[in-house]
């Protein structure tokens, strides 16, 4: 009799450990994959859907992605309609009710930060604009702090037994990140006020570094650079010279090289996300390398 009572009580105490298993995380972009790894440690099983060499606006809803979405417990994406061309298909085709928008298994990084460039006029004549604001929030590493808060909370919500573990890792990450931010802002002091040309519109990197974007290679967001537009940019650079052209790794190098040759300024290939360059192995490396490359070009 006593043995039965004891066994019963022991089984009650032990029950949370039965259901304990790795949290399957589906990260849309490598920066959020890397952040999930920082916060989730060995409690998460991570799948990153895209690489830094892929344009996150234009991903094909491949069968392999649907199969991965089917198994996910948590989806971590940018949001702000960056993935509108493929993520909704994956979610609907997956037959997975754990990760549908509105539920605890669906996390959008853009919802935790203040988006810049919220368009005042919604018209596709303005190019590929996003009604919620510009979604490339990882251009500014300071945005990673609120995103990390939200993500740790989301992880703790779907895996309550490890909530403390995620909070602990969050504290540790934030401490290291604050340190890195300080280091970066000291290193970037030399870039303040420097004029740059950007391939694709991104207000976050200039906001972080204090660089000044004088022109974009894309005539409108998401529209391919045309010869006519490049000529206009070249003419503008004669008036207001820039120090460098910034191009995310996933864009074709041709338009920027064409302009660089004629304007006599260097092209800086930015990693844009984790894995976008050999040195951008993790989140810290991503911004280290971004700064290294820009500082090198500004000499």
């Amino acid at each position: 009799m006593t043995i039965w009572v004891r066994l019963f009580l022991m089984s009650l105490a032990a029950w949370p450990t039965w259901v304990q298993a790795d949290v399957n995380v589906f990260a849309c972009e490598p920066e959020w994959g890397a952040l999930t790894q920082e916060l989730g440690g060995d409690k998460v099983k991570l799948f990153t859907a895209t690489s830094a060499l892929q344009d996150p606006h234009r991903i094909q809803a491949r069968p392999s992605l649907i199969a991965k979405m089917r198994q996910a417990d948590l989806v971590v994406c940018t949001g702000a309609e960056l993935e509108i061309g493929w993520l909704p298909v994956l979610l609907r085709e997956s037959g997975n009710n754990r990760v549908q928008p509105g539920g605890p298994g669906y996390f959008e990084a853009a919802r935790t930060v203040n988006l810049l460039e919220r368009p005042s006029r919604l018209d596709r004549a303005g190019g590929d604009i996003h009604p919620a604001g510009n979604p490339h929030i990882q251009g500014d590493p300071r945005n990673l702090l609120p995103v990390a808060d939200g993500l740790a909370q989301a992880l703790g919500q779907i895996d309550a037994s490890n909530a403390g573990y995620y909070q602990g890792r969050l504290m540790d990450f934030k401490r290291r990140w604050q340190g890195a931010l300080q280091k970066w802002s000291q290193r970037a002091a030399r870039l303040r006020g420097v004029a740059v040309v950007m391939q694709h519109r991104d207000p976050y990197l200039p906001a972080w570094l204090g660089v000044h974007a004088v022109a974009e290679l894309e005539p409108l967001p998401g529209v391919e650079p045309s010869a006519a537009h490049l000529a206009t940019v070249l003419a503008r650079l004669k008036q207001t010279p820039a120090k460098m052209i910034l191009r995310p790794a996933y864009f074709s190098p041709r338009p920027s090289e064409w302009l660089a040759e004629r304007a006599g300024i260097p092209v800086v290939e930015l990693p844009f996300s984790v894995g976008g360059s050999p040195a951008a192995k993790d989140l810290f490396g991503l911004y280290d390398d971004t700064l290294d490359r820009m500082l090198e070009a500004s000499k």
Partner: protein
Amino acid sequence: MYVRRTLLASAIAMAFAMPAQADNSDDIAAIRKEIEAMRQNYEARIQALEAQLKQAERHTSQAKADAAEPTAADHATPPAAANSFNPEIGLILTGRYANLKDVPNRHITGFLPLGPAAAGMRRGFTADASELSLAADIDPDFRGQANLVYEDGTGATVEEAYFQTLSLGSGFTLKGGRFRSAIGYMNEQHPHAWDFVDNPLMYQALFGEGYGQDGVQLKWLAPTDLLVELTGELGRGADFPGSDRNKNGAGDATLGLHLGGDVGLSNSWRGGIAYLRTRAENRAFFGLDPAGTALTGDFTGRSRTWLADFIWKWTPNGNPRETNFKFQTEWFQRSESGSLACTRCIASPYASEQSGWYVQSVYQFMPMWRIGYRYDRLDRGTARLDGADIGSTIASLADYSPSRHSLMLDWSPSEFSLVRLQYARDKSMAGLAENQVALQYVYSLGAHGAHKY
């Protein structure tokens, strides 16, 4: 925590409710002592946990305050309005110019056509087949979508109007209403998503534009890294090759299996097989007799179709932005048996076994520009009326192998616009070798749902 406390309490209660089994009073005292010790132990642990939780909460609110400095979210509440929950509305505008020969009684030789009149692409300018789509999540459990198409002659038709479950889970999705069947690859695609101006001869002979269902579809996805998707449908079976029958129960049934995955970073594929069984009752058709005069007739019997499809896509490093390549092929086999009657023939036993395929490739050689080639081929196979080849009675069903070469070039300055030029060498009708030229536009306004693979 509450649940655990209650369970603990009931466990203790249970222990006390069965004193008869423990006849030794010392034993009972010992158990009481043990339980008391356990209770105290649990109380202490619960208190410790509560303290930890409070501390964690303090940390988070502190952290939130810290992070607020550069970029915390400020979600301006949008003003309340009655139209806030309007569905996603999308409008597809299409139109074309086609330069064709004036061919009376145009048909695909060897195959029973879809209706009692000849059909085909119209000559000159046309701007029909514009498509309006409405879609929204209905509630946390369902999503709804409707597609309305306007076509000259038929007017507005409801092409699709269905609900789809969002919350079944375990890989299951149930669809119900009017929808495009999941058989084959192109069947679910609407014309604006086609890579050529027209659809393959195979689809034209099989279903016209596509096989629609009024019914239900259950889909299951296996929890594996390889995509394994099983689909089954039951429907009214009113669409060609079936016909509307006045009956209870399901008029048709389909089964399908799809597999798919990646090969390295740059390649992905999907392949599948599907089966459709349906019946036709007095399914009217049009034909030509050996003298070349038009006749009409009808078919009653069963129709069975097998379809296989394979798609392979190449995108360098998984990035389709600059260049990409798509290879696509489908094959079918259809057997029909029953009885066929026509203006110049009395109802006799009819049996056919026919097949066909197409293969096509589309290459984006630079941003915005794509070039594509398609080859269509059909095989009439056997078609016998009362034991003899049907060609001797109905000349438009004579033994012939329709084929077509198509070449296209398209330009899409954004995801929302496309202009396409197509040239085809069409031999789908016996005695005809036609050069066809078509120029087409497809514009997408408003919400435009993401396309499937």
